[in-house]
Each structure stands twice: as C-alpha cells, then as structure tokens.
C-alpha cells in the first residue's frame, strides 16, 4: 500500500525567516540558500492530525494546518498550509557556568485539546515552555471608556452609555506563552511526554527524569535519577522516555546500553527501581568495538494500542511486547550494509546520530529514517519493507515515490545506489505519522516533506 505513496505537498523553510508553501517547488528550492538555523529538529502531529508542528535549530516553531475539506473545490483534501509561526526559544548564555544554551527545539508535544485553543509543549536543552495557540476572528468595539486604540477617553466627552459589540475581523492566530518550566534540568533534555491524565508531563535529560504539573512551574518531582555518586563511574545515560498511552502510572525510558526500563509510579515515588527491564543479549557473532554504541537506543515509542514498544538503535528498529522482557518480538534491519563501515562512521561521528521512529495509526506499519534522504517502512503483517527517498527531484507534487534500493554486492541494477555513494550528510532523523490516516511528515535537514498514501487519497 505504501509503495504508492504520493507526494501531496512540499513545504520548505527559507533562510529569510519567512515560510513558503510551494506547490511546484523546484524554482524556489534553487533560489534560496539554507542555513543551520533552518534545520528541522523535530516534527509532531497533534492528536487529531489537523495540525502539524515543526521545531528547528533556530528556536522557531512552525505550525501547519490541514485544509478543510469543503474549502476550495479545486484542491484535494490533505494539503497542509502554514498556520502560525513563532519564536519559541532564544539563545541564552549561562554566566555562572560559562555555557551557551542553544535555542534548538529538541522536542514538541501537543496537549490533548481541551477547548477551542490548542496547546503544545516545546523544549530546548534546558527550558520547557507551554504555548497556547488560539484563533480570533472577532473583536470587541464600542467600549465606553476606551477608544478604538485602547486609550482612555476624556471622561467629559462620555455623555451616554453603550453596549460594546463584537465585530468580525480577519482571522488572526495568536500564540502566547502560558508557562515556562525552567531550572529543572542540569543536563540536556532529550524527551518530553504528556501523561494520559492530561494534568502532568515528564521531561527526561541524560541522567534524570522529572515529573511536572502543567499548571505549576516552580517545582517538579524527580522520578528517576541515575547519576552515580561519582561521575567517574558513569557508564549509562537516559536517551528517551515516554508515558504509556492509557495507564497514567506507567512510563518507559531507554538507555545508551540498549535497554528499556518500564517503571510504575505506584510502586514508589522515586522510580529508581524499574519494574521491568527489556534487554536483548548481544549477538557474539556481530561483536565489534562499536557494539555498545550501535545498541544505544535513540528513540522509544509506545504503540497506539499500548501493547508494544518500538525502539530504534543505530542499525535496527525493534518491536517489543510489554509482556516479554527477554527479546524483541520483531527486529528489522534499517541499513545493515553499514555494519562494515562502522569505523568510518565512528570517525566522522555519524554513529552518534539519533534516528527517531514512528508507528502508523493502526500499529501495523513502522517508519524510520536513514541516510541519503532515505526513509524506511516495514509492514509488520506481510514482513515487506520499502526504502523511499525524500528529494525534490522525486517529489514533484502528486508524483508517485519510487522505491529505492541500495546495492551491496557486485550486482547492480539500474537506479540502484551503491553503499559507497550514500550521502551521510543528508539524514532523515525526524519523522511523524498522522494519528489515523496514511499521511507522513519527513524532515530532511531544512525541508519538510508531507506524503500521502495514494490509495487513501483516492477514497476521499
């Protein structure tokens, strides 16, 4: 099914601080240069899939909204347009430690919608912020004591009373900071996750996990702390953490040694002792100097059903059953041909890249990124897999993506790409899947690609 993915929309960000929505992208792509601040660092759909948020290295958040179905007859449903953009984090300098704090957005998480407004959490290395995104299409007019510009009137001119009225105006999207959760982390925040109780969330850094109440900014509770008394004994760090989608007491965190720890907050307030440890014994035949580095988990995601967990390490994605700790139930090779290149990848630091992974809406397909602007999809039922490429050449609007193949041995078919010509600077680290439909968002350095499944779109 996903073999016939369609390009529905290509959106790109430019260096000029403006956002362009491009239907026919090519001309614009070439005209603009890219800069580091535009590199997308996170992508996240909201719970309905109507909104899509991206964060970048420049601290900006851009929100895309899906066009409503009835609007604009000529357009097919599914196109995402820029809805709002705002500066979430600014670069800071810690004078006490003489450290720069980057403005890069590490993660964005949407809160379940409670009223007409939307809310999201965004975080950089240290500070988490809660933002409210609301629409306004009316404004009050006819105040008794204030004039149009909000200045107080001269009271002597007020001779009669009137009732203020709401007048329609152009739609305005307002983004306002609601809470700033600072000073909770000494190390770099790598994950945030909103609890299913909708009241609390957790934030994880390299060594600790804190639990916050969404309304309280001046204190958090430390629920996991793996910092050893002596830093010389440090051998393991926390790489990602997430709450269970239904059970508000359960959360999982992954480590740089390749293990997952499931914790129950009912057991004790400080969850230093996990209740389940998911770990796969190392395969001795694949042992190398880099075994530990490549087994470091870069992302962990609960399935929508809450039954499985998906983890990504450097070379594979694995599906774990919550009920089985000894080994994953499925392991998929993302780019096994890199196994013989680990030494080079270590030297150029690529081996430390943190790839994310995603489930589709029905938990039957998983997706993750790779190098050379390739991304991979694995069908859990049929065991088929596909490599697709997010590039402007292949992504003209409504073009069908062709599966790509990396050839390892001597036999090379037409259109195959050899392992040696892979571009390791073009990596797809961040991907997101629409919560119910087959729409995916792929962040390839400073470009965002949104693809939609052809079968799905024809049904609409």
């Amino acid at each position, binding site marked *: 099914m996903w073999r016939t993915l369609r390009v529905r929309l290509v959106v790109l960000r430019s260096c000029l601080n403006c956002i362009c929505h491009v239907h026919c992208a090519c001309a614009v792509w070439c005209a603009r240069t890219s800069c580091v601040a535009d590199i997308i660092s996170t992508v996240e759909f909201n719970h309905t899939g109507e909104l899509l948020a991206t964060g970048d290295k420049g601290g900006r958040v851009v929100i895309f909204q899906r066009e409503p179905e009835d609007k604009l007859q000529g357009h097919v449903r599914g196109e995402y347009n820029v809805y709002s953009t705002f500066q979430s984090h600014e670069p800071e300098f810690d004078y006490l430690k003489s450290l720069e704090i980057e403005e890069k957005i590490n993660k964005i998480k949407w809160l379940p919608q409670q009223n007409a407004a939307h809310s999201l959490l965004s975080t950089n290395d240290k500070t988490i912020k809660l933002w409210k995104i609301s629409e306004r299409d009316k404004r009050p007019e006819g105040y008794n004591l204030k004039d149009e510009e909000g200045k107080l009137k001269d009271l002597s001119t007020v001779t009669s009373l009137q009732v203020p009225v709401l007048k329609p105006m152009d739609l305005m999207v307002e983004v306002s900071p609601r809470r700033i959760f600072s000073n909770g982390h000494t190390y770099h925040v790598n994950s945030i996750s909103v609890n299913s109780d909708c009241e609390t969330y957790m934030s994880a850094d390299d060594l600790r996990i804190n639990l916050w109440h969404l309304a309280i900014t001046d204190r958090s509770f430390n629920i996991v702390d793996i910092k050893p008394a002596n830093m*010389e004994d440090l*051998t393991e760090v926390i790489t990602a953490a997430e709450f269970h989608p239904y059970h508000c007491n359960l959360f999982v965190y992954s480590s740089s040694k390749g293990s997952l720890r499931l914790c129950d907050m009912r057991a004790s307030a400080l969850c230093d002792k996990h209740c389940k440890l998911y770990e796969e014994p190392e395969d001795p035949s694949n042992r190398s100097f880099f075994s530990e580095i490549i087994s470091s988990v870069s992302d962990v995601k609960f399935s929508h059903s809450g039954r499985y967990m998906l983890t990504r390490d450097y070379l594979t994605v694995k599906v774990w059953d919550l009920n089985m700790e000894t080994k994953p139930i499925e392991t998929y090779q993302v780019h096994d041909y890199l196994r013989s290149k680990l030494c080079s990848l270590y030297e150029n630091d690529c081996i430390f890249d943190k790839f994310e992974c995603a489930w589709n809406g029905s938990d039957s397909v998983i997706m993750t990124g790779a190098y050379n602007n390739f991304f991979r999809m694995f069908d859990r039922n049929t065991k088929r897999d596909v490599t697709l490429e997010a590039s402007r050449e292949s992504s003209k609007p409504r073009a069908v993506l062709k599966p790509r193949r990396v050839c390892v041995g001597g036999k090379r078919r037409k259109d195959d790409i050899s392992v*040696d010509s892979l571009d390791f600077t073009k990596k797809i680290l961040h991907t997101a899947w629409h919560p119910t439909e087959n729409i995916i968002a792929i962040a390839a350095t400073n470009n965002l690609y949104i693809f939609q499944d052809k079968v799905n779109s024809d049904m609409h």
Partner: protein
Amino acid sequence: MLSRGLKRKVIDCETMTDFSSACDCNRNTMPYSHQRQLVLNMCLNKLQNYKMLAEPNLHRSVLIANTVRQIQEETRQEANQLPGVVTDSYKDWNSENNVDTLMEVSDDDMSSAISSILKDLDFMEDTSPSQIPLAVPEDQPKPVDGGSKAGDKPDLKATECMFGSFEISSSTSYLKDLSIDDIFDDIDTSMYDSDFSFSSLVSPRTASASEEAQKMFSLYLNDLDHIMEILVGTPPPPLRCMFCSVFFFVKTFVLYGYS
C-alpha cells in the same frame, strides 16, 4: 608491507582517505590489535577534541568512554595471559612488519583520560545552582526547586571534584612521581618505529617510501599545530588529560623526524 599480496579494489582505497576507512577496508586482514589501536586513538582524539566544544554532549562522551574502557579491559586481560599466546595471523603480520611489541597507550593514561572527562562534566554541570534536590526520605519524590539554595551535598562534592582536577597529583598517580622519561616509557610508540605506517594502509599504491614519510611528517606537523592551539586556548582543568595526548604526539613526531 601490509599491502603485499592483498586484493583490494582500487576505487575503494582512492575514495578513502583516513585510517578508519582503512580499518573498515582491511577488516579481515588487519590484525585485531592494530584495529584496536586505531579505534583507541580515535577515541582519545575525540575525548580530547570534545573539550573544545561549546555544547558538551554527555551521551556521546559516555559512549566513547565506554569504548575506551572496553579496549582497556581487553588489554588488561591479554596482559594477564601468558606471553607467547598470540594468534598466528598476528605473529605472521608482526614478523612481516618488524613490529615487536604492541603499540599501546598505558592503562593509566586511559583511566585518567576517562575520569578527567567525566569529572569535568560534573564540574561544568553541577556547580549550577539550578537543580537542588532537597533532603527528603528515599521513598519520597524529590521536589526540584526553581530557586537556588546553598549547602547541599551534591554541590559540595562537585566543588571537591573541581578542585580535584586542578590538583594534578590528587586523584590518580599519573604524572605524580614520574620524570618526563618515565612518562615517555609509558607510551609505547613502537608502531611508529617500524616500517609500518598508516599511510601504507591508506595509499598502498604510493610509489616511494620517502614520499610517504614526507606525508606523515606533515601530518604530524598539523597535529602538533593543533595541540599547540589546544594548549594555548584551554583553561587549566583539562590539562592533566591533555598531557598524555600531547606527549604521545610530540614523541611520535620527534621519532618520525629522525627515522
């Protein structure tokens, strides 16, 4: 030379310009101990360069430090084994290349490099007043206060660590009661004394040995420049770890210049 009698695709080696690719490329032919040495050198380089980064990355440094620890552990185990228990391929390769001993950085160097890096991280992160867990019973969640308070234990410890790294002799015995010669004794550079050089791995088709020598020479000149940069532009705490790498490079440079 290593390249003798080896089938190797020309195209592979032309595109590969560094030791690591050579390691990947010669995985089946290069003796394990030399692969290990390559990896170790890379690790130590990374740990050293890491100090110059504006944004320290704990995850990355821990992974690198663990790799060094793993190599260190292997070396220790080998050292405990009886001498003479060496694999055949290794012996053959050694005799071909006149390498008598393993080229190794000593245990102490590695330990001190790791601990210095990790300690410095502690110093950098933890003297911050930001995260102050209050004294609460173990089972209770620790409230993390937004403001700053003084006098809790983790902070005191961090301060000790900080001073610990200022004082060269305090934490490890490295450099404590050694003369300069002893330090050099610690660092085995036999690999550079031998005919074997990394450039032979990288460019097996290079014509003359003198060309290669020149290449290596300028390579180490660059290294030396780099080290001087680090020395000039670095604050005191990392110096201890820096020393081992500096001596390592300086000595190899000098030896190569004479040979």
